[in-house]
């Protein structure tokens, strides 16, 4: 019998411990991994987050003159890998966790990024913001842009490879002629 009385004592002492949700909200602790939010003004469209996302909640869609970065909360694990990977801190996990919605559309976020054309072949390649970011980062390391950098920054990777290949072949030919 004493067992039951002890239990009753504990139950009365502790009382009700639940919250009257949603009227009364439980405080979320600092560093809660909630919904990831993309800062549209800083994202450069590099795709680092897309590469590392374990559940493919983030995807990059390629169109003629834009890239679409899609984030679908329905697949998101709230693991925060994207936040760690982002080179410009454009993606942050905020403390919001109530994501239930009646339509799928509410759970989708889309960011459109303008692409730039290659100076040589005229094909669209990377995003404008990525080039701008690259130019900014270059200035942090060097005082001014070198000729090589300004000549090549707007060439697409295929054209750049071709150019380097030609230069290499040229150098090789010269070296052979000298011998």
């Amino acid at each position, binding site marked *: 019998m004493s*067992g039951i009385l002890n*239990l009753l004592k*504990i*139950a009365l002492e502790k009382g009700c411990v639940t919250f009257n949700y949603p009227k009364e909200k439980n405080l979320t602790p600092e560093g*809660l*991994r909630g919904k990831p939010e993309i800062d549209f003004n800083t994202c450069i469209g590099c795709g680092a987050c897309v590469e590392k996302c*374990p559940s493919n909640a983030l995807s990059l869609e390629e169109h003629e003159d834009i890239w679409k970065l899609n984030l679908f909360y329905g697949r998101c*694990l709230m693991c*925060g890998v994207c936040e*760690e990977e982002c080179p410009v801190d454009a993606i942050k996990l905020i403390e919001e966790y109530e994501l239930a919605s009646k339509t799928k559309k509410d759970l989708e976020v889309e960011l459109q990024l303008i692409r730039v054309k290659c100076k040589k072949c005229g094909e669209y390649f990377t995003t404008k913001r990525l080039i701008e970011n690259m130019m900014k980062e270059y200035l942090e390391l060097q005082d001014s842009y070198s000729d090589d950098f300004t000549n090549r920054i707007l060439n697409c990777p295929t054209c750049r490879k071709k150019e380097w290949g030609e230069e290499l072949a040229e150098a090789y030919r010269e070296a052979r002629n000298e011998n």
Partner: protein
Amino acid sequence: MENEIICKIIEKFHEKILKTHKISSETTIFEINKEHLSEIIDYSYNSLNGCFLTMTGTDYLKINSNFLLDYMLGWYSNKQIIIFRTKIHRDEETFTSITNIVPCADWYEREVKESLGLNPLGHPNPRKLLLSDDWPDNIFPLRKNYKNEIPPLNKEANYPFDSPENAEIFNIIPYGPYHFAIHEPIYFRFYTEGEKISKIDLRVGFNYRGLEKIAETRMTYSTIPFLAERICGICGSVHAEAYTQAVEKAASFEAPERAKWIRVVFLEIERIHSHLLWLGVASHMVGFDSGLMQFWRVRDRIMFLAEILTGNRKLYGIIVPGGVRRDINNRKKEHVLKELSEISIEYTELTTALLNLTTLKTRLKGIGFLSQGEAKKFSVMGPVARASNVSIDSRRDYTYEAYSNLEFNLPLRSEGDVLARTLVRVNEVTESLSIIKQALEGLPDGPVYEPIEYIPPDTTSVGIVEGPRGTDVHYIITGENTVYRWRVRAPTYANLPATPIMLKDQNLADAPVIIGSIDPCISCAERFIVIDNKNREKIYNKKILEDKI
């Protein structure tokens, strides 16, 4: 010095062992011919008292035109694991079953049969295990040439249940496929005489998700830990840890010292919350709901601690190959230590009050008995084994992370009944609380993450972690950029085949808590079975249900 077990096996079978290679300090691979397999395993398992850890089949056709079969046996007291590897040529597609010698190999061999199409000759029970009834017979999902374009056959489900010889004297009681208290799919068929259960048949595999295949085909080394965590909703980071350990061993990489200690904190937090969850559910299963409320009240404080440390109540997403993803700062550390001391007072108070209740005790005492001999025979793991006086714990025996620096006792009971399993878990929580305290107080300084440079392909590696339910074994063969083969052996896979023994000759009313006493962890259902009073069964599959609606 060579290990005693290895010496004994080599001494007896030196001509029959083709090759040996050591893959880590405690693991050795013995390559043997398939003709000698049953003889060598018989000696190692039955005479040397090994513990069956896992068995894996691998499609290695592209590399050496063979299938690989790996039988993994462990000797906890000798800190030794041996993998017996045998090759099966692509044209043969058969091997000799060892289920008659090692009863716990039953499920593993059936799984190899289904997933790889290798037929275990002489298997006493060659029914389906994991795949659904309408899965085509000649398509094997874990072969590398499998293409995911075959539609299900949509044929009528027809699972051959075991039926006793004089079936008409028994009542058939279906139990499942949805366990009412653990909310997971498992189907038991009880043949009862009055209240007494005389024969039991068990069916699992209602939602085989094929996680291993997803990992092998779609994911990379760094994203698999997140998938591994989702194998189980309760002991997720145990799986992430076991996978991480296997990858780190394959890469001969040592995680930073601080990361090792932090991992211990998360693994123990998970053990506490899992055991408290189980204690609550067990109280509920015997109709004692005050116990459920009180245990879960204490458990929620642990969940808040996890939320503070990781950002999530569950599915921490913290342990990855290379270290951990979040550090514990001093402020958090102080807070957790303060909370822990309060929780441990509250917990002791609660368990003393509850476990002195005669109603609860009499309900749990003397039911679901598993003797020490049978526990060893079925290689059961974790608290189930420790309640039957089998002293195994991979934290102590195959020590990993920072466990070698921490002091803890191993609660052992010799009764082997449900009460013993409850008491083992109750005492383990106290031990875990002390482990977390020691780990937080002794936390060394330094980085928590270092990237792994290179993971060599074609390396076999094993990760062993003591989860709340028992030893969790992850076996990997590395490939290019991702795992070539990943085999997960969760502890329930070892414990569940022993439930028919515990249930034999028990009362029907005790069945829920006996099944619950191994803390089973299964997954979600897709169909249900109705049996009418004339013992004729009618099976509703998804299609019929949809038509009816």
